Structures are given as structure tokens and as C-alpha cells.
């Protein structure tokens, strides 16, 4: 067997070995630095905003001109509920409002009558006052004559009774006048009833308008599985509309790489539907929070802290939201796998 000498001979071989190892180490450090400075993720997803299409009223679905996976424009009719119950409610509310308005007219006439009665009562007061003054003057004139017995005492007594009568009549007239004044009243209650009925009519008309549902934005119809004839409860979601005016890629980036990412940074996104087509985008925002298993617990209870002794901790990842600038619509499907390269890649050169 050939003996191997480690310490002697072939110094050029040792030199080559040292050179190769040093080059590999330097290259490894360079690649690690480059990789950290240019974060990327191959587990991103294509994302878009969605609207769960529902209406605040319920009823039978009578018209459904859209079908699943169809593209719709903002303002297009999506579906229509049977408007008849809501039309009947509107008619009922209209009738109630007419009733309330008639009641206002009625109340106006009643107030006019009571106002006239009050004027009459006021005049009665004036008459009673005049009569009482006359009776008082009569008693005043007869008093010296009666004391000298120029007139019968009976006549003087009658005059005093007449004065007392007149005073009672005046008091009654005053009270009647005050009562008539109070009885006039006003239109407040009937006007309030009119306003309440007007509001009820407006609400009924609003509900009638809600039986027609139009697209709130441009987008694609998704997960529509029913035909017209279906009965919908109020606020029941019929399908989901995927808005196509803005598309995003969500990339989960490790926290150690987040410090080099700034909103506005260029990003290259590949939808794996076609891995040869790069899509240019820019970082819109970085998620401010994720639910951590260590802090998850029942609200209002004590924190759950497992007993453990772990030395290696896996880095947390945060979702980085990349807004796509322009892309072929064929590449954009919500939930598609995406590869995201931040601050590098074909689209950022």
C-alpha cells in the first residue's frame, strides 16, 4: 500500500486546495449578502379586492342576467328581486301620508273655529265688564238716596244683588275667555304625524330601490351557483365579485429582510400561470401584524405560556403587499401562485 505523506511534497496541490476553499468561502459570503439585500419569495399569491354581493332587503330572485366567471362593468345590472311587496309598501306609505296631510287640513279648520270662539269669549268679557260697571254705578247712586229713605230699601237691595250678579258673570266670562284661548291649540301633533309618514314613505321607496342590485365596480363574477327563483334573506350573499381594477401580489418575507424593503420599491412578480412573463409592480405596504401562536389566547383569560426550552427560533414572516402596475389579464387569477422578487428581477432592470 502506498504511503500518503501529508506534510511533504506537492506544495502546488495544497496551494490549489487553499485557493479553491477561499474562493468558495468568499463567493458564498457574496451570494449570502446579495440574497439578503434582495428579498424574494416563491410562495406568494396573486390577490385582488372582492365585494360580497348582497342587498339589504330579501325576496324572490326574479332576474339574474349574469353568469359565473362573467366580466361585468361598474353599474351593470347584477340581479333583481321581486319588487311587488315593496311597491305595495310604498303605496301603503303614500296612503298613510295622504291621511296625515288630510289630518293637518282638518286640524287647521279646527284651530280656526276655536280661534273664533276665543274672540266671542273675549267680547263676552267686555260685555260682562260693562254690565258690572253699570251695576256698580247704580249702587253708588242709590246708596245716599236709600240712607235718607228717599227710595224704598227694597230697590237699593235689588241694585246690590244686580251688582253681585254682574261680578259673578264677569268672573265667569273671564274664565271662559281664558279657557277658549287655551283650547285653540296648534298643528304640532298633526305636522309631526305628517313628517313621520313622509319618512316611512321615503324608507319604503329606499327599500324598493334596493331590490335592484348593480355592480359596484368592474370585476368578475365568482361562486355564483343559483338561478332566478331563489329566495334570498336580507343581507344574504349571492356571489362574490372580484374587482379587477387593481391587482396585488402578497409575498411573505422573513422579518430579517424587512429592513431593506421600503414602500415604493420596484418588484418583479411572476404569476406561475406563465412563468416566463414578468410583471412589474411596486411595494405598496408591509403588514403591520400577524397572529402569533405564542400570543394567541382566549380574550379576558390568562396568557397561555407553554413550558419549553427551545434554542432555535424560526423567523416570523410578514405579508408584503405588491401592487401590480400593468399585467395581462390572463395571468391574473385570485389565489394563483406568484414568485415575487423585491428590488430586482427582469422588470426592475
Amino acid at each position: 500500500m502506498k504511503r500518503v505523506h501529508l506534510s511533504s511534497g506537492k506544495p502546488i496541490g495544497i496551494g490549489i486546495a487553499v485557493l479553491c476553499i477561499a474562493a468558495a468561502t468568499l463567493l458564498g459570503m457574496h451570494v449570502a449578502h446579495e440574497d439578503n439585500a434582495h428579498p424574494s419569495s416563491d410562495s406568494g399569491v396573486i390577490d385582488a379586492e372582492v365585494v360580497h354581493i348582497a342587498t339589504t332587503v330579501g325576496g324572490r330572485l326574479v332576474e339574474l342576467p349574469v353568469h359565473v366567471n362573467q366580466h361585468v362593468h361598474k353599474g351593470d345590472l347584477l340581479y333583481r328581486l321581486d319588487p311587488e311587496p315593496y311597491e305595495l309598501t310604498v303605496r301603503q306609505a303614500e296612503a298613510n301620508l295622504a291621511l296625515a296631510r288630510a289630518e293637518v287640513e282638518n286640524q287647521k279648520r279646527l284651530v280656526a273655529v276655536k280661534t273664533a270662539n276665543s274672540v266671542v269669549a273675549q267680547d263676552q268679557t267686555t260685555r260682562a265688564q260693562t254690565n258690572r260697571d253699570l251695576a256698580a254705578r247704580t249702587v253708588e247712586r242709590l246708596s245716599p238716596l236709600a240712607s235718607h229713605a228717599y227710595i224704598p230699601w227694597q230697590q237699593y237691595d235689588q241694585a246690590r244683588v244686580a251688582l253681585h250678579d254682574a261680578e259673578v258673570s264677569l268672573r265667569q266670562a273671564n274664565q271662559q275667555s281664558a279657557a277658549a284661548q287655551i283650547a285653540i291649540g296648534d298643528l304640532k301633533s298633526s305636522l309631526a304625524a305628517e313628517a313621520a309618514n313622509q319618512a316611512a314613505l321615503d324608507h319604503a321607496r329606499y327599500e324598493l330601490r334596493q331590490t335592484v342590485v348593480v355592480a359596484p365596480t368592474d370585476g368578475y363574477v365568482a361562486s355564483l351557483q343559483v338561478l332566478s327563483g331563489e329566495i334570498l334573506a336580507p343581507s344574504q350573499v349571492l356571489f362574490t365579485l372580484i374587482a379587477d381594477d387593481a391587482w396585488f401580489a402578497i409575498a411573505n418575507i422573513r422579518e430579517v429582510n424587512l429592513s431593506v424593503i421600503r414602500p415604493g420599491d420596484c418588484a418583479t412578480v411572476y404569476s406561475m400561470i406563465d412563468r416566463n412573463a414578468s410583471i412589474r409592480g411596486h411595494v405598496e405596504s408591509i403588514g403591520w401584524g400577524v397572529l402569533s401562536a405564542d400570543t394567541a389566547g382566549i380574550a379576558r383569560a390568562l396568557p397561555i405560556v407553554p413550558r419549553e426550552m427551545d434554542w432555535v427560533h424560526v423567523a416570523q414572516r410578514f405579508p408584503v403587499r405588491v401592487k401590480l402596475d400593468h399585467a395581462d389579464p390572463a395571468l391574473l387569477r385570485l389565489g394563483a401562485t406568484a414568485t415575487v422578487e423585491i428590488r430586482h428581477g427582469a422588470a426592475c432592470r
Partner: protein
Amino acid sequence: MSRPSPLSATPFLLLAGCSTDTAPSFSLAGAYFPDWMLCAMFGVASAVGLRVIFVVTKIDSILRFRLFTYSALGVIVALSIWLIWFGP
């Protein structure tokens, strides 16, 4: 980790034109594999290939610490491919 000197990147800048315009992720039978996995396989293959070439050309006989030398050569090839094809 210290930042490598700017000179260390110079040879690779010359190769920047070779960068691919495709996603750094490969589809194989419905699963996606990362780019570095391909680079690692190239590295292993090139280390074996270099060993064969060096034995045939008798260069192997002047080498010492062959396991470390061939491993380092494989690492250099793998990292270079990554830098040229997928590097920023």
C-alpha cells in the same frame, strides 16, 4: 457578516447579460421547486465531472485534500450559476 469588497463582484457584473427573464421557480409534475435546488444539483454534477476530467488529464495527481478541493469547486460552480442566472 462583513460586506465583500466591490472587486469581488466585478467578474459577475460582466455576466449580468446572461440573466434569465423567467421565474426563479420550476414546475415539475405539478410541484414548484426553488432555483437553488437546481444550482445545487449542477454543483454536485460539476464536481463529479471535474474529478473525471482531472483524473483523465492527470491533473488529479498533483492535487491534495481532494475531497475539500472538489467540494469547493462544486460550491463555486453552483454559486456562480445562481449569480449568473438568478442573481439580482
